[in-house]
């Protein structure tokens, strides 16, 4: 499944590259800060994230586009003991949570042609979630597509006529599904934005 997710994100990168002739496209490295149920499951921040996005200008201020990415949270909990009825098990526990958003976005850009340009926006769509507990070699995994949304704010700092240094913060929230509770995290993005 991870291979399939990477296929989708590779595809998004290729689309972003091709559409880059008319679109603003960005690729960022992401750090994820878990919140709510996500931090209950995994307390540690994620330094394994990447995101690709594309924005098409309808007017000078407004864009529509897409965002695709992957963020993997991971924590080693060490030796733990769990009981269920009369059964008790002790083992080493490792937890993984992979969130892969595939969203359509709308953004408002302030001073698009300034050397420093900011934007706010919101994305909505599907998150593919894989929540795994590895317990001494035994795997317990839940996976689902979940509806979610992502308000964001970001700033581009012009490096050349065609390239901005780009930072953004995104609040990711996805709704509860059959197997996985509602989750949330903040992604801090650092990367480059390429302009037509």
């Amino acid at each position, binding site marked *: 499944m991870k291979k399939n997710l990477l296929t989708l994100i590779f595809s998004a990168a290729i689309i*972003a590259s091709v559409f880059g002739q008319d679109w603003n496209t960005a690729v960022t490295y992401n750090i994820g800060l878990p919140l709510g149920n996500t931090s209950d499951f995994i307390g540690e921040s994620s330094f394994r994230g990447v995101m690709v996005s594309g924005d098409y200008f309808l007017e000078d201020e407004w864009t529509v586009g897409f965002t695709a990415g992957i963020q993997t949270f991971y924590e080693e909990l060490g030796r733990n003991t769990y009981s269920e009825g009369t059964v*008790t098990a002790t083992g080493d526990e490792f937890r993984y949570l992979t969130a892969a958003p595939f969203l359509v976005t709308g953004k408002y850009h302030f001073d698009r042609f300034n050397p420093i340009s900011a934007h706010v926006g919101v994305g909505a769509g599907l998150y593919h979630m894989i929540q795994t507990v590895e317990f001494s070699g035994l795997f317990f995994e839940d996976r689902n597509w979940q509806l979610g949304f992502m308000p964001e704010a970001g700033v581009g700092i012009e490096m050349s006529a065609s390239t901005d240094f780009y930072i953004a913060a995104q609040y990711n929230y996805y709704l509860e599904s059959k197997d996985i509770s509602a989750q949330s995290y903040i992604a801090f993005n650092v990367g480059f934005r390429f302009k037509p």
Partner: protein
Amino acid sequence: MRLLFYLLLIGVVAGCYPKGPKYASELDLAITNYDESFDFDSLSYILVDTIFHDDDEEDISRAYDEEILQRIESNMNNLGFDRIPTPDSPAGLIQAEADVVITVSAWSSTSINYYGGYYPPSWGWGGWGWYYPPGWGFVTTSTYGSILIDMSDPTTYQNEQVGIVWSGLINGMVDNSSPSSIRSRIDTEIDICFTHPPFNN
């Protein structure tokens, strides 16, 4: 150029995917279960002094047998239980009037792991392309050792069967582990079994 940058960043992050356990000991597992209706206070016990190896090819070393039995006895004695000498014949297990009879069995199993043709299946650079041929991949095997400690109630003996009132199973990977490491891990996991309910009440 832009696409190459995109793919490079995605590839770097994908390569950093967390790997999980790094040491064989992190795969060690101890599981116990017990009969709630059985009274585990002040037990007398017989420890059958031969471990049954459920393994036709005898590829589980018997080098650890004596230590396994001693560790079980040590834990039972620390819990305040009294050992009754092991009878000479199976029939004696019933006649000895012990509260429980402890038997131990051991076996090994092999896990087969396949790592193959990882992403991307085919892509190129500067006019050169490369791809994984059909069937490309790596197969690794891991050997696990398991020890099952059963405590049975001899008063339930009927039709050559006896009721189990407590079981402890320990399981661990034994590849690339020194005998001293395996001994230490076996001791640790047996000790853990005897910290589980009902013995921690």
